[in-house]
């Protein structure tokens, strides 16, 4: 058997040069066939500052080297490296022993960065399709009950209990039903869906098949954003391989059940992450948000009962069916059960993916995993939960990662994206950008959002113009607050409804950024 060498094909890992290193590895293996090595391109472990991370399989476990340049390959790859840890400045020891990784609770991401993402056999050798096998022996109601018991709540942002959503679809009379995976991952600062789809697409496919069995749906769609070309490529391959192996199509895994799956590409519209806009888009229309009711669970895609779930929600289901809902529920705090794949982004020395049970505080998380800012300056503001999430000042960093704890301070956990800013940030520019983003991405259906965002940008510009009397300043501020209220309470969906979150938090916790002369105002004038 050949000896295995791993390099990631994950988008971010590739952006750091894994393809160049891979080419060098292939060259070396060709020149030295006696090494008997085989290169496997896998997902990423999520330690992006160490990419390109080269891993070599030894009888004692995988040994990690990183960050590796093409010019390092020759010195690392020799007969000894396949036996044990070797003396080399880039050798990090056994991958699984690295504290950053070892201390995580990787339930959903267990195989990401470990297996060959498009090899069905590798997936099965790592407990893949066990959940599906168990599911095939259960009734639809028993499956829904397992998911309810797990306490799983939607990871796309709204945190709605997945089991209850599935029950609604199951309770609809037998007819064409659909499973739609929301892979639009529009929130800036998030990449968990992308990493999962690139690193372990079969776990998502398995989750979608189980969802189909649970509610009586035989057709699934993955709505993937067009900004993810690599995930698209890998998903298509994975679906083809799953079909060949009998896990998709007619009589899945030899059962009486059928499930077909297709990937569909979005087209660069943030609003199409909102589930009803997504359904319109899948139907081939403009992504205008639908008024609810009716719920998609009752009248969804093409008017049929539809489960819409985020990638991570669906990818968590195989674990639940493998180990039982109660086991998943054991992780977490309060009403936030299980684990959250947190994404550390922005100005952070060790950016990457940290999957942990709910409950750890933001401070602990940053101390244990972040290693400070990349710029080596002080952290000053953290945006959690994407572009509609609040900016948190340092006094709020002791908040535990828990949906209710975040909402109690006017913030959201959302999809788990954590974007760190250092003390050079201009919070007035950030507030302005929140309004500008809403202006660009509003679907245009309702006035508070469509017009409010335009007015929001205008009033912030006036506020920062620098020639205001104190009375004028107060006028602009109170107009901005009124506008935020109108948007929050008058908008049809959370796009307009939550844009005030980043704006208000910036105003409230960083008021000195809104006084003139501004800190860095020339930054936004040219935008």
């Amino acid at each position, binding site marked *: 058997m050949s000896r295995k060498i791993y390099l990631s094909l994950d*988008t*971010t890992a*590739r*952006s*750091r040069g894994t393809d160049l290193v891979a080419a060098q590895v292939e060259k070396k293996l060709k020149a030295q066939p006696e090494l008997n090595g085989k290169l496997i391109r896998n997902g990423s472990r999520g330690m*992006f*500052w160490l990419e390109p991370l080269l891993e070599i399989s030894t009888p004692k476990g995988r040994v990690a080297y990183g960050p590796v340049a093409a010019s390092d390959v020759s010195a690392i790859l020799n007969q000894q490296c396949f036996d044990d840890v070797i003396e080399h400045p880039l050798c990090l020891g056994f991958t699984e022993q690295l504290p950053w990784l070892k201390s995580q609770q990787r339930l959903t991401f267990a195989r990401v960065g470990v297996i060959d993402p498009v090899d069905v056999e590798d997936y099965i050798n790592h407990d893949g399709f066990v959940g599906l096998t168990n599911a095939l022996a259960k009734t639809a109601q028993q499956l829904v009950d397992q998911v309810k018991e797990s306490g799983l709540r939607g990871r796309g942002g709204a945190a709605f209990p997945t089991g209850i959503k599935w029950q609604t679809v199951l309770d609809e009379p037998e007819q064409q039903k659909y499973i739609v995976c929301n892979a639009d*991952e529009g*929130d*800036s*600062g*998030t*990449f968990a*869906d992308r990493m999962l789809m690139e690193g372990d697409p079969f776990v998502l496919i398995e989750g979608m098949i189980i969802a189909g069995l649970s509610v009586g749906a035989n057709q699934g769609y993955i709505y993937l954003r*067009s*900004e*993810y*070309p*690599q995930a698209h490529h890998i998903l298509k391959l994975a679906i083809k391989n799953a079909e060949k192996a009998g896990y998709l199509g007619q009589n899945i895994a030899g059962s009486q059940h059928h499930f077909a799956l297709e990937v*569909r*590409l*979005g*087209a*660069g*519209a*943030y609003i199409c992450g909102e589930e009803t806009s997504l359904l319109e*888009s*899948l*139907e*081939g*229309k*403009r*992504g205008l948000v639908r008024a609810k009711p009716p719920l998609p669970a009752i009248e969804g895609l*093409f008017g049929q009962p539809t489960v819409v779930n985020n990638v991570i929600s669906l990818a968590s289901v195989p674990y639940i069916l493998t180990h039982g809902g109660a086991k998943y529920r054991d992780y977490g705090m309060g009403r936030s059960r299980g684990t959250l794949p947190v*994404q*550390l*982004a*922005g*100005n*952070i020395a060790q*950016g*990457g*993916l940290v999957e942990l049970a709910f409950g750890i505080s933001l401070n602990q998380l940053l101390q244990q995993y972040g290693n400070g800012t990349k710029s080596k300056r002080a952290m000053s503001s953290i*945006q959690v939960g994407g*572009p509609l999430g609040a900016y948190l000042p340092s006094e709020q960093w002791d908040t535990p990662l828990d949906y209710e704890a975040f909402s109690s301070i006017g913030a959201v956990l959302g999809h788990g*994206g954590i*974007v*760190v*800013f*250092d003390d050079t*940030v201009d919070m007035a*520019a*950030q507030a302005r*950008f929140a309004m500008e*983003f809403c202006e*660009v*991405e509003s679907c245009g259906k309702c006035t508070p959002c469509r017009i409010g965002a335009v007015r929001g940008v205008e009033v912030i510009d006036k506020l920062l113009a620098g020639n205001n009397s104190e009375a004028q300043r107060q006028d602009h501020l109170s107009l901005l607050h009124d506008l935020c209220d109108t948007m929050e309470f008058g908008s049809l969906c959370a796009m307009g409804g939550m844009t005030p979150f980043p704006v208000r938090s910036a105003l409230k916790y960083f008021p000195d950024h809104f006084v003139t002369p501004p800190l860095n105002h020339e*930054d936004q004038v*040219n*935008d």
Partner: protein
Amino acid sequence: MAVINEQGLQQIAEIIKQHQMLAGAMLPILHAIQNSVAFIPDNAMPLIAKALNVSRAEVHGVVSFYHHFRTEKPGNHVIEVCRGESCQAMGSRTLERAIKSKLAIDYHQTSSDQQYTLEPVYCLGNCACSPAIRIGDDIHGEVDPGKFEQILDALTTYSLELK
């Protein structure tokens, strides 16, 4: 809005035929057309409308709703610059100014030599290595003005080799 010649139209008619049976075929058709001829020609819209049994206005409406679809022929390289918050935290505002000035174009514009089209994008999922840009299907991380110049040099060298 730009149009395409007869030969291009035939190619598009073929693409439409291949996709029109899909449920919700509009976006798959538009993607396939743009992948093949780089934009959605104005004279392709009636064909799409007819195949999907919708009005031409509806096709226009869909094309204009989505940022990804373009109705003008782009430059040889489409450069997308991430404007998302994570990239902002790592200096993307400075980067975008440098890129605009280097290429002498603003967003949604194409350079006069037809080499580059510049577009904003809101997150490429590369936020652990911000700032990010995308050129074709390649995503580059930790880009600063200096690294951008290198990327651009590599692009030009590559296109020269092809000639």
